[in-house]
Every structure is written in C-alpha cells, then in structure tokens.
C-alpha cells in the first residue's frame, strides 16, 4: 500500500530550474523538483513503507531549514534510507540552482 504524506515549510529563496533525480527502485527514491512562486516549500511524499512519518519530517525539516527554497517537490519512495533521501534532495537542489 502506498502512503501519502504532505509537508510545508516557509521559504525565501528562489530556484531557477526543474530537477529530476533518483530512480524508482527498491531502497531508492525519485525526487521531482519544480520552482514555485509561493513563499513556501510544499512536499508530497508517496512511500511504499509506512510508519516512518517522524523520520520523513526530521529529514525534510532539516533540509528546508538549511535550504529555504520555494519549490514544489514530489518524492516517490521505495524504502530509501534517510541517507538516500537527503542525498537525492541535495542533488535535486544542485540541479535546480
């Protein structure tokens, strides 16, 4: 079963480009990033692994505290570790700047 989680964080920096990193595969995740005109980052996580809400929140909160970027992000997750998620987010950001 796929669980959908939604998060929103305040943002003040703009990015210029879309980015797509990662793959849909076991132990991995895909991150699709789009610039947003809103003063917020809104994230939708679709994950095949339930019960890690607190971990997702911690990873995303930390990322957007360090990188307050105005974006819409979609994450399709198939059991990625927090390390993989953080790496994909950083890679998406490098691609979007």
């Amino acid at each position, binding site marked *: 079963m796929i669980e959908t989680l939604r998060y929103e964080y305040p943002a003040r920096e703009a990015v210029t480009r879309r980015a797509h990193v990662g793959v849909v595969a076991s*132990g*991995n995740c895909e991150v699709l990033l789009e610039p947003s005109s809103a003063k917020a980052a809104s994230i939708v996580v679709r994950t095949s*692994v339930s019960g*890690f809400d607190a*971990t997702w929140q*911690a*990873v995303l909160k*930390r990322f957007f*505290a360090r990188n307050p970027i105005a974006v819409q992000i979609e994450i399709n997750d198939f059991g990625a*570790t*927090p*390390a*993989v998620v*953080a*790496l994909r987010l*950083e*890679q998406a950001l*490098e*691609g979007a700047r």
Partner: protein
Amino acid sequence: MNSPVWNSRRKRKTERLARIAHRVRDGRFDAADAVAVLQALIEPGDRVCLEGNNQKQADFLSRSLASVDPALIHDLHLLISVIGRPEHIALFERGIASRVDFSYSGPQSLRFAQQVADRKVSVGAIHTYLELFARYFVDLTPDIALIAADEADASGNLYTGPNTEETPTIAEATAFRDGIVIAQVNRVVEKCTRVDIPGDWVDLVVVADRPYYIEPLFTRDPELIDDVQILMAMLVLRGIYEKHRVKSLNHGIGFDTAAIELILPTYGERLGLRGDVCTHFVLNPHPTLIPAIESGWIKSVHCYGGELGMERYVAARPDVFFTGRDGSLRSNRAFCQAAGLYATDLFIGSTLQIDRDANSSTATLGRIAGFGGAPNLGSDPRGRRHSSEAWLEMTSSVEEVRRGRKIVVQLVETFQESGVPTFVERLDAIELARSAGLPLAPVMIYGDDVTHVVTEEGIAYLYRARDADERRAALAAIAGVTKIGLGADEARTQTLRADGVVAFPEDLGVRRSEANRTLLAARSIRELVDWSGGLYDPPKRFRSW
C-alpha cells in the same frame, strides 16, 4: 629424592604416537582411520587447536573430531580462530569440547550463543587474531593441532597455496613445544609446489576425502554499490586520504570501502592523488582493487589470506603481491595483522552501532560473533615508534616529547537499511555481555581510538576535538536525523565547521551531484574481469553471464 623430569611433554608425545604406529606408514594414515587415530591420540582435557580460519577450514579433521566417542574424548579445550562450521558446534553439543578460546564465529554466531546459554561450553575469551595467536606461545600452547594444506610430500612438507593464513603460526606453536601436528591435505605429491611449512614440524598427514572447504569472503559485486556509498567514498578520499596523505592502510570488507577502491582510478585520478595516497595496502586480495592496481595506484598488497578467483591475477602481478617461487600468493594472517597494527597509517571500516563517545560494536543480542582482526587494526598501537606524515599529523601537541597516532576511521550511514539508527544511546554489546556472562562488553573499536567518523552527512574529525563534550558535539553534527543527530545544536555545528572539527561535503569541495555510479571504475563483476585482462576468475555465484 627423585630427579626432576624436564621432558615430560616429549615423552608423552612419543607414547601417544606409539599408540597409533600400526596405522601409520611413511608418516601418513588413511582417511578411513581418521576417527580411530584421533581417538587414540587425543586425551580428555587436551588443548586442541583446530584450524578454522577465516577462509580455509580443516573440515575433514573437524568432521572426524566431531565423530569421536565422547565417552573416550571429552572436555577438550578448543582453540580456534573462526567457529565457522556446523561440526564445530557439534563438538560442544556432543560434549567433546567444553571450553573454547576463539576470535570470530560469524556464520555460527546464533547457534554458538545458544551453546553458551545452555552451558555446553564455557568461553575462555573472545580474542582478536593476534591475541589468540600470541597466547599459543604463552599459556594456550596446543597439545594437538589439526591443520589443512593443499599438498604434502613424502617428508611431510606442506604447500598451502594462496591460503597459508595462520597454518604456519599454529604449526610452530605446537611443534616446538612437543605437541602433535596433524595435517589434512588435498593430495600427496612427489615434490611440493613450494614449502610453506617444513616437514619436520609435521607429525602426521592424511589425504582428506575432499579438498578443504574455502569461503569467498571478500568479493563485493560493484553492481550493489549505491550513490550514498560513493558519496562517502568521495568524502573519505578528499577529507581524509588527501588531507592527511594516507599512504599505507587497511580497508574493511564492506561495500563502502569497495566504493573507495573503485573511485581511485576515476575521482582520485582527477584529484591528482595517484602516488601520493593509498600506495601500500594490508588487505586480502579484494577483486575491487583490480582497477586501482591496473591504473598504477598500488605499489604493494600483503594479504591475510587468499580470495577465490584471484589466484591467476595475483600470480601475474608479483610486483604488487607477495608470491612464492611457484607464482602463487603467500598469505600469512599473523604477519599481516602485525603489519596492520603497527605499519599502517590508517584503518577504515564499518560497524552496526556507534554510541555518543564513538565506541562501536557489531554485536547484536542473541549472537556471539566475536572480533576477528578489526580491534587490532582499528586501534592505536601505543608502542609504535616510526613516524609517517599521516601518523604525525594526528597529534596537535607542540610539546617536545610527543607521539603520533594511527588514523582510525569508522564509516557508516546514519541508518541501516532496515531503518534502524546506527547512532545509539547504548550499545547492544553491553546487554549481550550481561546476558552471556562475558566479563567485557564486546566493543569492536573503542571510542578513544577513533580519530574520524564519516557518514553521508560529513566527517567528524574527533582527534581535533578539545574535550569529550566537543567530541560528542562533532559526532552529533554528522549523525543525521537519528536521536543523537537531532540533539545537535545548529550554531555549535557551524562553529565546529569553522574550526575544522566537522566538515560537510561542501566544505571539502565534494559535489553530491557527482556521487553516482558513473564514478566507479568498474560497475560489475564482468568489468572487473575485463580490467584484469581475463585473469580474474570469479566464483560461479558472482557470474551473471
């Protein structure tokens, strides 16, 4: 007054050998007589060193020993490097052995823990390899040694092929204090391919029913290396090897260190580090080393043991590997462990759990897995006197009398694949010691020996921390979203980064967007074979073609 006897061990040996003389011809007995021979030679309470190595196993002799009559042979004190085979456990189950000193029990760790819990066996100590070997020369000298070799000749000379491992060490300790050395061999030959153990250290030879068992332990398929491991490999290369000019080193056996080996010819080459870092390895012949060797990075590799499939490749690279006149690898676990302890700049390995003070352990409840060599390799030998650039750099002291320090790196992701955090408040090892009645918690590497911890978040340069509190803060700064990581203070982390106690990837010029599999010099076993010019011959289970 009776005159003192000074040769009781020698007399006892002569008496024992006389009991089986009728079964022996030219120093050899038949495989069919093996159980009877062991039953006649061994006495209850003997110290029996059974060659269970990390790779090579004297499995014919261990199967034979497990088949003796426990009414005749019981309460043996087993000395064994690796409790790796089912019949090792059977020795305890059947009451043949009731005490053991060992180093590692990976494959049997669960069943072994059960035997300890059931009081079928008591543990003398869980040793590191070097400690166990050293004790053979002090108070744990074997009465009987059961060893394995490829070939024997008529004089009992032995050839051990690429897997010499600890065979000479066991034979030496036993032979020179009048113990009995029994070797199982794959075949008897006119003239040994090369002599690894001289015949006059060997009392009896038996041709085994089948070649000794050997396990490929150090083959890591590059197919399974992921981007996070590559990112961490980049961090290690820039933030540790390049920064400290690490020349001599030992790598753990995980995919993360395989990733380091595989980015030397790509990322490392681009950084211009060839010849400056990673020139001398103390390491088994990892197949993932092939691209770096072929690219001219590596000057020498000394090995603990061999690795299945690497025989022809190693034989074709005698400038790099230690080889005999016959061409094949000469490994030696005791010398290699000593080299790893005393002669290297750096040890890097992974673990399952790290606490706030950087103590680490791979122990999990219900298993007694032991140590192998990691605690020796991953420790600072305080008796070292020779200096190297990297070793000297680990001391910040400006006093006239100072000492350097070995670099000990723990390389971990903040969470295991199962979502279990690597950084923990309390090691499971502490509870394991309590429940199994061990006098010491089985800590793999003590925190005060650890100089660096690397995660996907960055590097904690623990050796630079001013005190215990700053050490903990540095570790928390790279502990990600584990409970310990979430306790990190953001402002303090910034200060630690400014002071060079913590480095994030961007502080080291490491770009995360580069962290992907295109950086691996070989992305599959097939490509390793190609790099080797067809000399590497991977075991079937690693072939997908």
